[in-house]
């Protein structure tokens, strides 16, 4: 048995940690590349959303590398994410690839439990007692690593906006994350995080700069994965923008497990409540949260909002229409970026540059900007 999982931001780091600690053999799919995307595009059609294509590409590459068991987070209605597995299974089957599929239920219910039991029945024969006993420890390690990654990423967002040498923070973040990835025990992990933090803070910074504050909202895959969004977070940061986002693994896991630690779930509820001014019903996925967050960020004095969505995403399409109105009503610039498989990195760069220039323009006031 060889387990594999899709890429999503830093997810491979902690998924790997779980498998490694529980001593389950695993294959990390190669880093998402043009080839991954091309494989996904080839085996789906143009109106299927981008995350579907990338995840499919990841699976194909991983299966070709010898993986045989796919672990995938399940989801429910109303968005298409809930039926990814149904369609991806048949596509892989049609391609002649052999696999077994394991769905992690989005919510812990009896039905989910039963389905999981059915799916794992076969797998259990291949697992040893050691694997099963070590699994809770693996989960704990995974959670620790996830929190570690998020701490470093959050710090990098702050540092990046003030860095003197462009691109330095990104390089350092990569190194720090790989240190986290390599840590085997909880002690070395703690050390890696501490070192990473000081390492990042040591970046040469320009304290005189007051960076713009921009919130990234939108569909969670596009917000969380730099390969899907072509590094919007990094690009904005290097233009001197302090980026924030509320879509993290910990938020989504806490939400589905209904843990309300650190008030993260209640923050989501606050966004949801704010969206009621424009939307009378829960449209599903992140739609209401995107709108609510944009409204509240405008009130909190943010300079702008970047809204990310995959092409033809059902809930976010509704959101993008409403966000255009929010932007007018609340006088906050909102840039909607629709992402698909096309080579759009250059275009995104241009759009973001223009967006940041507009923020500058807004900050300085029209007259001052026109003087020279």
């Amino acid at each position: 048995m060889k387990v594999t999982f899709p890429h999503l931001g830093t997810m491979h780091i902690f998924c790997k940690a779980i498998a490694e600690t529980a001593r389950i053999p695993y294959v990390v799919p190669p880093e998402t590349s043009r080839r991954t995307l091309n494989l996904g595009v080839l085996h789906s059609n143009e109106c299927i959303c981008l995350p579907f294509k990338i995840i499919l590409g990841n699976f194909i590459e991983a299966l070709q590398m010898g993986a045989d068991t796919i672990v995938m987070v399940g989801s429910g209605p109303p968005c298409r994410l809930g039926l990814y597995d149904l369609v991806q299974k048949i596509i892989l089957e049609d391609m002649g690839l052999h696999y077994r599929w394991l769905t992690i239920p989005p919510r812990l219910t009896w039905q989910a439990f039963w389905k999981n039991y059915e799916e794992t029945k076969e797998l259990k024969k291949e697992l040893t007692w050691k694997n099963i006993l070590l699994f809770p420890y693996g989960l704990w390690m995974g959670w620790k690593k996830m929190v570690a990654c998020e701490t470093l990423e959050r710090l990098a967002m702050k540092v990046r906006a003030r860095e003197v040498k462009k691109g330095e923070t990104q390089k350092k973040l990569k190194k720090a994350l790989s240190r986290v990835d390599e840590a085997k025990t909880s002690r070395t992990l703690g050390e890696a995080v501490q070192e990473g933090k000081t390492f990042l803070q040591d970046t040469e910074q320009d304290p005189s700069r007051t960076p713009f504050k921009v919130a990234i909202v939108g569909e969670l895959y596009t917000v969380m994965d730099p390969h899907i969004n072509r590094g919007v977070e990094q690009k904005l940061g290097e233009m001197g923008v302090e980026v924030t986002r509320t879509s993290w693994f910990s938020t989504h896991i806490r939400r589905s497990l209904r843990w309300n630690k650190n008030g993260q779930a209640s923050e989501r509820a606050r966004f949801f409540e704010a969206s009621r001014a424009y939307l009378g019903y829960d449209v599903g996925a992140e739609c209401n949260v995107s709108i609510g967050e944009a409204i509240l960020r405008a009130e909190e004095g943010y300079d702008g909002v970047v809204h990310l969505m995959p092409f033809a995403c059902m809930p976010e399409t509704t959101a993008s229409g409403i966000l255009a109105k929010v932007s007018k009503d609340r006088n906050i610039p909102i840039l909607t970026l629709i992402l698909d498989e096309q080579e759009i990195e250059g275009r995104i760069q241009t759009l973001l540059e223009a967006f940041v220039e507009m923020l500058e323009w807004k900050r300085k006031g029209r007259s001052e900007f026109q003087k020279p």
Partner: protein
Amino acid sequence: MEEKGTIGIPKALMFYRFFPFWQAFFEKLGWKVVVSGGVGKKGKIVYFEDSCLPMKLIVTHSVSLKDKVDHLFIPRLVSLHRSYIMCPKFRGAPDIVRLATEGKVSILDETIDLRESSYLRTFLRIGKTLGASEKETKQAFSKAQKFSLTFQKEWAGRINRVPSKQLFQLEIPTPPQKNKLQEISPPLGFESQRLVPALRPGKTGTTEDGGGDKGEGDNLLRVALIGHPYNLFDIDINKDILTLMKSLGMEIVTSDSLPEKEVDRHLSDLSKEIYWSSGREIVGALFHFLSGDADGVIFLTSFKCGIDALLQEFIKRTLKVRGGSCAPFLILSFDEHTGREGMTTRLEAFRDVMDEKKKSQMSKLKVQINDK
């Protein structure tokens, strides 16, 4: 009864399934019902959001109605089945329309969610908003239900015998069929009205008055037209494919003529339940008709429809994996740029394919009979 005012119903989305009921209900309550006209060739589509054509059309129709009516009826269609849901875009539709019409018209946006509340209770709430007593509303409801039931019984015949532009002009009666064949009662809408069809006509194409201009009699090809109701019957979306098909000598049978039981039967062995009721209907109908209950199957989809894109891939792959023979299958995708000419060519070619297949089947049959 004097008229209390006017209620506008945009001719878009689920209008094409529930209009008889809606109209009868409001008229019985003493309101005048105004339906928006088509967009036609020269009409302009309002682009409020970058969505699929049907969503753009509901905005366009609503905007054209906004100054002419007292209320716009755009229910929030969350679920029209006790366990399945509608497309997430429908949930935001009233809000989108409200923003697009700039709040200039009152919108009746009662949530229809049959998972939580019955159809009657939903309409009692609508009646209350309109100032009708509970008794009046109940009477109107039962009368509307009766009316829509008789309408549904005629529906399968009406599609073939009434010009497509007049399908929803309810005052135009369905011309009677010449030879008495039991008609399939299309199960439109909600549970209680889902009727198991009477026996199907034994042979295909025995109806002489299939509406074809050529009057080819037994040469009529029985073609299944599958898709969301608005794709099937909205002339602005499908460029009047119904008339075109009839003129090519095709007898049309639509996906909504399939009883729910049959749909469920085809979907019972899926690894995950499809949770959109329209999606279920489409996939069930495709499996049903492709397995031989029609001479050909045409699937109409709107560009950017998330549900169709995903399920289309699923259908194609499943057919490939299952193997065996299936009826000729044509997928037509529509957007506002689709031309009628291209569609005509494809339909003509499709008819030739069906003809050939039928001929070869006939000759095989003859050979078998001769052998005996």
